[in-house]
């Protein structure tokens, strides 16, 4: 009764192709996930960075804020000349004589934990609001949708700036502020998903059989939205990582901490570009971009696995060899 179309589709395809590992056959979605190249690419990049963050004390031992080169010569407030990478410092040192590689490794901790916690928090808030709006409908929906759309249209960065500026700087504030501005998109996605689910027969059946609204929401509707839930969590994390970096870059977080954002802040403040010290900002940006890219790939993969329409498109275009301007109507092959 509760099976969604996507579930039936996947299980059908797993019947036709036998797998070598029988335990995987019981988890068709997981199997599709493991077979998806984009998903594997995203997961491995992400896994790499999470491991780096967790193993920071072993990969780059020492205090990331320690001023290494010529620290004994100059007082701390005199800017050091950044040195390019070499044997002692793999990626060189910053304008304050700190080891770039060590900062990068330790910075992953704060950046990733802020990103992931905002991703989870804003998706949960968004889901609660979206579920309520979509399921209850009526004036509740009107008000919540209005609020969601207003949050979506107000430009993010200026709002983030005034929110962050009036509150005490620190990671907790950043997570709070980013969640406050980031819940709207998940809420909108969730709402539209609930609207389409609510029209399904199995919901009507549970309403008729007298189930209470919270139970319908959490044990009937929510399990069928797990892919959307994970998808918007991934999307929110991408948003959070980017916005966190932007806020830090403006100097609105505690710039004394080590994160990828504050690394870029110091690179800009010490004129890393105009002194030619490219190593102070290029590795950081590449790490941020790799994380965002990995998450985006993960989202595309999720879309491909759970959206039958995209799969149908892939199947038809693979069989078609003669391209050109002749158009073929995509039809799902049975």
């Amino acid at each position, binding site marked *: 009764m509760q099976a969604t179309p996507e579930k039936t589709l996947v299980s059908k395809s797993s019947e036709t192709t036998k797998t070598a590992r029988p335990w995987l056959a019981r988890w068709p979605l997981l199997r599709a996930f493991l077979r998806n190249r984009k998903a594997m690419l995203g997961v491995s990049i992400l896994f790499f960075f999470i491991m780096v963050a967790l193993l920071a004390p072993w990969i780059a031992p020492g205090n990331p804020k320690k001023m290494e080169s010529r620290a004994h010569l100059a007082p701390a407030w005199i800017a050091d000349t950044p040195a390019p990478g070499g044997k002692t410092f793999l990626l060189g040192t910053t304008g304050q004589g700190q080891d770039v590689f060590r900062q990068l490794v330790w910075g992953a901790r704060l950046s990733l934990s802020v990103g992931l916690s905002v991703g989870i928090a804003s998706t949960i808030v968004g889901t609660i609001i979206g579920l309520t709006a979509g399921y209850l409908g009526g004036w509740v929906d009107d008000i919540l949708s209005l609020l969601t759309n207003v949050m979506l249209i107000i430009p993010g960065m200026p*709002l983030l700036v005034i929110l962050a500026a009036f509150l005490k700087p620190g990671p907790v504030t950043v997570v709070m502020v980013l969640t406050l501005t980031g819940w709207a998109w998940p809420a909108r996605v969730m709402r539209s998903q609930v609207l389409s689910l609510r029209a399904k027969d199995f919901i009507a059946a549970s309403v008729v059989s007298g189930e209470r609204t919270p139970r319908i929401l959490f044990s009937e509707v929510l399990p069928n939205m797990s892919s959307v839930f994970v998808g918007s969590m991934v999307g929110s994390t991408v948003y959070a990582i980017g916005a966190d970096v932007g806020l830090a870059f403006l100097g609105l977080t505690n710039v004394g901490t080590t994160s990828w954002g504050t690394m870029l802040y110091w690179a800009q403040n010490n004129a890393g570009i105009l002194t030619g010290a490219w190593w102070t900002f290029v590795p950081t940006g590449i790490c941020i971009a790799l994380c965002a890219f990995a998450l985006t790939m993960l989202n595309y993969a999720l879309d491909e696995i759970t959206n039958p329409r995209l799969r149908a498109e892939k199947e038809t275009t693979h069989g078609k060899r003669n391209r050109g301007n002749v158009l073929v109507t995509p039809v799902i092959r049975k």
Partner: protein
Amino acid sequence: MRFLLRRLGFYAVAAWVSLTVNFYLPRLMPGDPASAIFARFQGKLRPEEIDSLRKAYGLSDAPLLEQYGTYLKSLSRGEFGISINFFPAPVTTVISTGFMWTILLAGLATVISFFLGNVLGIIGAWRRNGILDSVAPPLLTFIGAFPYFFLAMIALYFLAFQAGWFPLRHAYSDALSVNWGSLTFIKSVVSHMILPAGCIVLASIGGWMLGMRNTMVGILSEDYITMAQAKGLSQKRIMFSYAARNALLPNVTSFGMALGFVLSGSLLTEIIFAYPGLGYLLLQAVRNLDYPLMQGLFLMITFAVLGANLLVDILYVWLDPRTRR
């Protein structure tokens, strides 16, 4: 017409929400907001500044509702308070100097990226699995994963600092003064704009292209496209007037949300290039804890985005006859 009126009502609500957020935020600060702000500027504020700050916030011992009333009244007269950093210039004057440059940079970059992205998306969907369709989406996704301002840093370092092809900073050459009549000035403005605008376009084009491509793929399988093919209409006509016009609609709707996002990115891009727009002012405001300027910027940028959205809605009515009922 009803569509436009409904949208107008929505923007009014959005404007009211941002006004109210702006009003309550300083009052949500732990402790008394006034003393907190004054404490940060101990000894730095002149009496007239403190006065103007008080007035700008409508801070008094009056009940909250009355304070809210005075706040709305002074806003309606266009009084956003006095900038601390640029004292004694009012916030509105400070902002208006940067406004033009941001509109020029972000506006132009957004229009170019929207146009180019959609055209690329149309072609990508039309020649599905062609070279463009298989190379561009992953490449642009990867580029889009970089923070805007990081792309700007890279471009500034390699193309302006190392290669010396572009100017390093500002919106026009220091040797010139603002004079839109002279050709050398306009040339200087253009050459200063290429890098920052290019970064914004590069970072935002992927979203438009993918959105267009995916809707277009869906629309190309509609019956009326097959019908148009069967009638023997020219390919160009089917591509643009039949498929693209309909596929454009979702992208136009998402333009509003994207605008705020692109603007946020372009504010940070401006900082890298020391472009004298609103982003640069925002940085100044943050560095100097210039709260009135920060709040003024927030309100002005929000109103600008709402106004741009209204324009897009009017465009939408023109594009989609179904909304004219």
